């Protein structure tokens, strides 16, 4: 009666009605427009216990770098092409932190200069036995030196020979050069077989910021398009986390626009034809629109905004709101009296809304921001839509408008009136479906790998496969890092990880591993230790022995023994520790592959190559090391998403209890309440069991749809239960028929939308469609079959019959 009184009040104060409706809409729309949409999925996950892991979720360029590859022309030609393409890309460097596609000419000179000044810092104590061997093999080296000197046309080779006649550089260099993994052609980076030119672009934003990622990828695609017009013979491919993220966002937006858009057109067309009125469109759309802006405004007031992903998934929940509108509109068309409609519909609509909101509010008990956002948005959207549908909408319903397509309604009535609950074959089949669902429900998998819910285009896969085939020996490159607040502390800890990875390589767990960072960068203390070791090694006796070996070998090979003064000076010189990281010698694009400072912490990277099968085992070994992290947010999200799953199960339990308590308070009878609760309860097991049988799994996104199944299940159940009770009380009551018509339209709408999702490209949207469709169909079948059957059986019990008819 409450809503009837409100209706009467506003009927007498129409101006107030319009003023309230317009003013509230304007206020909500204003604040909804100010809401910020968070696109970074990582920010929505619970925080990890390991503090170092936060860095992996942060702005680390190694994990976010974009790989661009050019192939299809001779390497010498591609050198120019790469420069041309990069010049065009860098005309607008917004979103680009640094690039690496060529090594500038001075880098080698500067590196050599630095190395000469800090030779002992690069000499691991284990290398000294190689020095002994080099002294012992001075003759062989000198023969090579002779060739170098005699073919020298600039004097540079002679300088090298006089500084390093024993080839000590060869004791160090193979380790370092082997670890770079590139072939250099005219200073440009190529894969080892020189067929693919490589370009690395580090973005200055985080991967999961798909808004910034989208801008950068669009710019790169435009440059590639223009470049390919001029050079159609070469192919430019790109992959990387930023590309994947941008592809994901654009595919998801396109899929949602196409599937939801087309299905909405179909639905509205069907509704218009069925009701022979266009009014049905805005009568359904306005409450949903009002609910949406109300929810967004609330999200702005509470948190300043919400997750875009939660908004996307939450839009499905608006289907539940649509169901309430349909109940009100259809009932009005049947009874032709707004007050009567409100008397009949206000309680079931409010009850449905309350229980569904309860299901969503259970999500507030989780640790995931995504689920919390989703729960809050869905709650406010439903409250807003229901408020509009019960307070404003009745004033816009034409009391005399009862037009509808007789043909369409005849078919609907035929479907609705079919005695599903009296057909043993249907009942048995449904029971078998439910039992199978129960049996297999425990077997449904929860896929906690976020990569599996991402979309990968053919070009993306081609680029990644090409890179792995050309550079990773058929395996994959994995980044691990040591983190510490202080560079020296990180460098010291780095030695342990380097040693662990080296052992794993020796044990055959890694395809290849070169500790480039460990070879190039050492802490001050380690450098001091190495300088001391250098001095201990180059005793006057050792210097004399080496110089004697060099001079004797030089004479034997027709070289002057007097040219080796620089060598003697080098081994006898005093050295100080250096700081290669801050020397500015290594360009940023290359340096960030070894060391990066981010958020006040230093990360030192290792990039072994390994097979996918051994990935998890090696990840676990590395992650267990102090200061060590796996530079892949997905490694940590797996565990976190499992936590969300557990949280979610708890949320569902809380929601279920809440819904049941509300049903109990409303129906005031345990048996009726259990009956109303049954479709929601059973359909959840059917969904789980049949997803397991069909080989589908839950993931972080589609699991949220279970709340939708809960919501819609309990709504249909409440409406059917109210209809059944009314029919039991008054034989002539047509409430069940009206409710079933509304349920039919609601189910039609939702099944069309969910069905359309199966045709989407994005795996997440397809998985939502699968999950929701199974849930919807099972809910409807149970509501139409088992609920009336069990109610009828219950009414055979005189006590219950008296209670219901009272």
């Amino acid at each position, binding site marked *: 009666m409450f809503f009837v009184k409100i209706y009467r009040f506003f009927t007498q104060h129409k101006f107030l009605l319009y003023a309230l409706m317009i003013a509230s809409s304007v206020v909500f729309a204003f604040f909804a427009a100010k809401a910020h949409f968070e696109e970074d999925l990582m920010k929505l996950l619970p925080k990890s216990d390991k503090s170092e892991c936060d860095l992996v979720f942060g702005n680390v360029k190694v994990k976010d770098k974009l790989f661009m590859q050019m192939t299809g022309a001779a390497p010498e030609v591609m050198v120019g092409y790469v420069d041309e393409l990069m010049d065009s890309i860098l005309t607008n460097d917004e979103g680009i932190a640094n690039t690496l596609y060529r090594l*500038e*000419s*001075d880098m080698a*000179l*500067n590196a050599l*200069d*630095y190395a*000469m*000044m800090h030779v002992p810092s690069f000499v691991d104590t284990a290398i000294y036995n190689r020095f002994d061997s080099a002294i012992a093999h001075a003759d062989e080296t000198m023969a090579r030196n002779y060739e170098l*000197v*005699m073919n*020298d*046309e*600039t*004097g540079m080779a*002679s*300088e090298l*020979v*006089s*500084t390093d006649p024993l080839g000590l550089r060869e004791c160090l260099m193979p380790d370092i050069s082997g670890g770079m993994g590139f072939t250099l052609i005219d200073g440009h980076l190529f894969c080892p077989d020189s067929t693919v030119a490589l370009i690395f672009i580090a973005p200055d934003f985080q991967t999961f910021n798909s808004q910034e990622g989208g801008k950068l990828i669009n710019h790169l695609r435009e440059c590639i398009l223009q470049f390919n017009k001029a050079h159609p013979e070469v192919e430019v491919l790109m992959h990387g986390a930023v590309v994947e993220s941008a592809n994901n966002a654009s595919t998801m937006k396109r899929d949602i626009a196409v599937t939801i858009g087309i299905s909405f057109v179909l639905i509205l067309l069907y509704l218009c034809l069925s009701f022979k009125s266009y009014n049905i469109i805005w009568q359904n759309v306005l409450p949903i629109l009002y609910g949406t802006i109300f929810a967004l405004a609330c999200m702005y007031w509470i948190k300043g905004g919400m997750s875009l992903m939660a908004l996307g998934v939450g839009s499905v929940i608006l289907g539940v709101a649509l169901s309430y509108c349909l109940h009100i509109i259809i009932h009005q068309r049947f009874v032709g009296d707004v007050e009567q409609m409100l008397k009949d519909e206000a309680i079931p609509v409010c009850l449905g809304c309350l229980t569904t909101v309860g299901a969503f509010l259970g999500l507030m008990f989780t640790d995931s921001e995504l689920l919390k956002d989703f729960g809050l948005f869905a709650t406010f959207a439903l409250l807003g839509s229901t408020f509009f549908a019960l307070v404003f909408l009745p004033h816009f319903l034409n009391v005399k408008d009862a037009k509808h397509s007789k043909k369409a309604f005849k078919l609907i009535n035929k479907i609705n009136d079919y005695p599903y609950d009296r057909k043993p074959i249907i009942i048995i089949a449904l029971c078998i479906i439910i039992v199978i669902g129960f049996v297999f429900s425990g077997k449904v998998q929860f896929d906690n790998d976020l990569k599996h819910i991402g979309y990968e285009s053919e070009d993306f896969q081609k680029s990644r496969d090409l890179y792995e085939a050309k550079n990773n020996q058929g395996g994959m490159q994995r980044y691990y890092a040591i983190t510490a607040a202080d560079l020296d502390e990180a460098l010291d800890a780095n030695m342990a990880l380097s040693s662990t990875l080296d052992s794993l390589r020796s044990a055959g767990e890694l395809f290849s591993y070169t500790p480039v960072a460990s070879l190039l960068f050492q802490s001050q203390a380690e450098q001091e230790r190495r300088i001391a070791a250098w001095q201990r090694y180059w005793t006057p006796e050792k210097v004399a022995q080496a110089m004697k070996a060099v001079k004797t070998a030089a004479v034997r090979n027709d*070289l*002057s023994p*007097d*040219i*080796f*003064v*620089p*060598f*003697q*000076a*080098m081994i006898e*010189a005093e050295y100080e520790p250096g700081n290669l990281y801050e*020397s*500015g*010698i290594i360009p940023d694009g290359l340096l960030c592959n070894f060391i990066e400072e981010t958020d006040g912490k230093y990360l030192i990277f290792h990039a072994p190559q390994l097979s996918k099968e051994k990935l998890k085992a090696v990840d676990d070994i590395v992650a267990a090391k102090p200061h060590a992290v796996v530079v892949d947010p997905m490694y940590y999200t797996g565990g976190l998403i499992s936590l969300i799953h557990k949280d979610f199960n708890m949320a569902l339990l809380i929601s279920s209890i809440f819904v049941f308590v509300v049903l109990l308070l409303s129906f005031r009878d345990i048996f009726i309440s259990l009956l109303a609760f049954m479709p929601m309860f059973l359909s959840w097991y059917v969904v789980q069991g049949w997803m397991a049988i069909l080989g589908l799994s839950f993931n972080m996104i589609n699991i949220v749809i279970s709340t939708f199944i809960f919501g819609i299940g309990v709504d249909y159940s409440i409406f059917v239960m109210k209809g059944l009770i009314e029919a039991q009380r008054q034989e002539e009551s047509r409430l069940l028929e009206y409710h079933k018509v509304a349920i039919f339209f609601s189910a039609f709408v939702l099944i069309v939308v969910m069905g359309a999702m199966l045709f989407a490209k994005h795996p997440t949207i397809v998985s939502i469609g699968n999950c929701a469709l199974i849930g919807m169909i099972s809910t409807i079948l149970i509501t139409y079959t088992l609920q009336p059957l069990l109610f009828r059986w219950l009414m055979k019990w005189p006590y219950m019959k008296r209670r219901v008819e009272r």
Partner: protein
Amino acid sequence: MKKILTLVIAMLTLTASAQKVEAHFTESKFIKASGKTIEAEGKLKLFSADKMELRYTKPAGDYFIIDGKTVSTNLRGKKSVVDTEKNTAMRIFRNTLMNCVNCQWKQAATDNDAETSVAEKGANKVVTLSAKKTAPRGYSKIVITYRKSDNIPVELVFEEFNGTVTTYKISDIVKK
């Protein structure tokens, strides 16, 4: 009187270092290791105290340009641009060459930890910088012959510790 003389010498030195000069040069690099001598020649242009070009006509296309802290080279087609702030060896070489050309040989001696000796030779003055100790890089000896009249170098000899000797002879000097 001594102070005035010192001031005049300093002013003359400054004047010399500020001179804009164009000249022809020959370069002769004797590599002790192989016994070979590599000959080259070209045009030298001194624009200011920190800008100088050596553009080779033999081998054609090669160049060595000092422009502030940057040294650009083209050695048989292999080009490089080096920031001397990041490269100690190149910084010492750049500073030594510029100081020698600009008659700042005392500074060159300090940079190279060398002893100096000056001798008069007709219209020329010969300055010799000798390294006090051996080093992995740098020069064991630098000999610069300046015209006394204007302190413009006419010959520079750079001897490295490995015995490589590079001699620059400067002729057809035109002051701009």
